[in-house]
């Protein structure tokens, strides 16, 4: 029942003009087809058709704070609010808060004769399953009607059991591990694609788009990192590539020379890393010092500013995929980013649009069915083509999104630039 591999992939759209004919210098690799330097940038304004689709939610963010009255309804937020990945969690929390602000400044939600003001109840899971379970229990005790979160997969999976037991709808803006929605919980939803879609998309990119067939695969043994690397490992041979080496590191490891030296001996054209930027950046730096010239590709855990900072001058030319459309292809991104900046005086870090959309899906559900948690669950389950800031959302029977969009980014002059978009429809 749980689809491990049989995802009905209907469409895989490539949005870039590839110039493969002798573009760029082949960096010492022997395979003549492997030319990672020749991948150009995704066109920046192809989103005009969808531009009018994003909802009034963004427009209603106009901060006209009149004091809302009525019953206070608690919406839960759980995510990483401490530790080294705080930026991810705080970003999502801000996204959720902006959605609530929009409702509250418009006078709250009136449904079935009651007017509700929404309040965000935030709990920190520190990316840790144990803390996640504690935070989730606290949210249940606080009688929240629905939850946005968590941030990373490991903690989110631990939390999902508690929310499921209590019939509370949970929408994660960023957990990509397949297990989260494969446990048979009716309350678990996510607004991004899964790693068993992302991994194959990465493998396709490496073998088909970059034309590199000798692939080395590394991961950090985390639930997310290993899951993603396994998916790449499976798909590379399907695409007629070869996995020449498979290495593992620890999430707290800082010296990678042993693994990288073994990797070097197998001379891969591309090294895929499943894990987070805290390791990805230093791995790249140490690999270059060891004289490894292979192109590095990673997943959504590494596509952030930290990876560039940690890799330093070796960052240029890195690739990483991420869940969700590129900012330039998100219909409501520009408006949302402006509102975000106005309130927090900061730029969007990563998943704030998805958190904003997830919160609005819950708000729409409350508007339809009232503030009862069972009614919210029914209404969220029935979500049909809700147009958010990042994309349109329809949930499958497992709580995944029907259209998963992945974007592959490349570091150019010290910044991530989108180079390829992959749209996957799950039938």
């Amino acid at each position, binding site marked *: 029942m749980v689809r491990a591999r049989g995802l009905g992939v209907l469409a895989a759209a490539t949005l870039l003009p590839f110039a493969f004919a002798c573009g760029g210098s082949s960096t010492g690799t022997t395979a003549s087809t492997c030319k990672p330097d020749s991948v150009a940038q995704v066109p920046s304004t192809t989103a005009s058709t969808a531009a009018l689709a994003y909802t009034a939610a963004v427009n209603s963010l106009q901060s006209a704070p009149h004091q809302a009255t009525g019953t206070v309804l608690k919406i839960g937020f759980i995510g990483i609010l*401490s*530790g*080294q990945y*705080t930026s991810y969690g705080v970003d999502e929390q801000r996204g959720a808060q902006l959605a609530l602000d929009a409702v509250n400044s418009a006078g709250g939600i009136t449904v079935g004769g009651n007017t509700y003001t929404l309040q965000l109840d935030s709990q920190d899971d520190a990316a840790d399953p144990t803390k996640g379970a504690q935070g989730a229990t606290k949210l249940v005790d606080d009688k929240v009607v629905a939850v946005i979160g968590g941030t990373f997969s490991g903690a989110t999976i631990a939390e999902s059991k508690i929310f499921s037991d209590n019939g509370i709808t949970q929408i994660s803006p960023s957990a990509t591990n397949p297990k989260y929605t494969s446990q048979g919980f009716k309350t678990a939803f996510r607004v991004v694609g899964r790693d068993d879609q992302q991994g194959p998309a990465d493998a396709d990119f490496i073998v088909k788009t970059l034309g590199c067939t000798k692939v080395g695969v590394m991961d950090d*043994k985390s639930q997310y990192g290993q899951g993603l690397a396994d998916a790449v490992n499976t798909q590379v041979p399907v695409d007629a590539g070869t996995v020449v*080496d*498979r*290495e*593992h*590191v*620890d999430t*707290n*490891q*800082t*010296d990678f*020379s*042993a*693994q990288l*030296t*073994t990797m*070097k*001996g*197998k001379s891969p054209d591309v090294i895929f890393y499943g894990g987070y930027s*805290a*390791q990805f*950046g*230093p791995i790249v*730096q*140490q690999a270059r*010092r*060891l*004289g490894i010239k292979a192109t590095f590709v990673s997943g959504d855990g590494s596509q952030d500013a*930290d990876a560039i900072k*940690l*890799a*330093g*001058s*070796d960052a240029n030319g890195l690739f990483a995929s991420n869940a969700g459309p590129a900012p330039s292809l998100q219909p409501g991104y520009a408006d949302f980013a402006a509102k975000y900046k106005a309130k927090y005086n900061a730029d969007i870090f990563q998943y704030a649009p998805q958190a904003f959309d997830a919160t609005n899906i819950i708000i729409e559900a409350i508007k339809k069915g009232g503030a009862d948690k069972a009614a919210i669950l029914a209404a969220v389950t029935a979500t049909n083509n809700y147009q958010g800031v990042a994309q349109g959302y329809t949930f499958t029977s497992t709580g995944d999104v029907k259209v998963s969009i992945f974007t592959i980014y490349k570091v150019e002059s010290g910044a991530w630039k989108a180079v390829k978009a992959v749209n996957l429809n799950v039938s």
Partner: protein
Amino acid sequence: MENCLNHLTSGFTVDGLVQQLINGLSLGSIYALIALGYSMVYGVLELINFAHGDVFMIGTFAVLGVVQRFGLTDQTSFVIVVPALLVAMIAAMALCGALGFTIEKIAYRPLRNAPRLAPLISAIGVSFLLQAWVATYVSANYFTLPNLIHGEIPILPDVSISYVQILMFVASFAMMFLLQAVVRRTRLGRGMRAVAQDRDAAALMGVNMDRVVSFTFIIGSALAGVAAILWTLNYSFNQTVGAIVGLKAFTAAVIGGIGSIPGAMLGGFLLGLAEALGAGYISNLTCGIFNSSYQNVFAFAFLILMLVFRPSGILREHVSDRA
């Protein structure tokens, strides 16, 4: 079986082996420098200073602070990098030394006559305190330094030894000889050896115990500061780096014979080599059943074997034994 033979030779090259040896020795020289601190304190006080790894961690952040203050990048010329790194080294040594001195004064001295478990628990408390302080008030992120020291010497067609790695060997050996000289030839060193042999008798002979202990902590911690700058030149770090690296260095000290200065060095190099070769070739040697994620297992398996078969370590100095 055929598959297993394939595994045995898969990806094995002489270049790779030499590279792994270099990796292991450079990592080992840092373990050795930190192990010296564990060993000295144990020699004098019979205390395992579990906060020592975190003193090293504070040193890495001191180096980061100096490098950022000087605004060093990959392109910065040697003329600026070398003095800046000297400043960073002095800053790290001074900060670590002062920290070691303070920790001893606040957390261990009042417990000197308490049961032996008390200072150990106090040490773990200090370790947590330093980590939490950095995570809260400095940063919980990982950091790397830019490639400050460029260049390498080729030894084989595809293997070279970088200047940073050479610096690691040279610095750790220089520090060891310096330390040996201090312990063997100076008045202070004589005091250290005296306190190690018999505290009470040393006190009766007029050795100022508190002064000797303070200096032991200052010197050991300053060596951790040297280790910190070498670490930052090649590896990444955050507030937990001291916990892991410190534990490995402690293992190295035990392997070499805790209390012994050459033992700490030997233990450090052996451990570095065991880790690098273990992680590099475990897959080959076990037909792919185990993989490189068992790197940490080697360090601690080594420790267990050592404790079972030669609990006093390879070069335990019997002088400092107090039966």
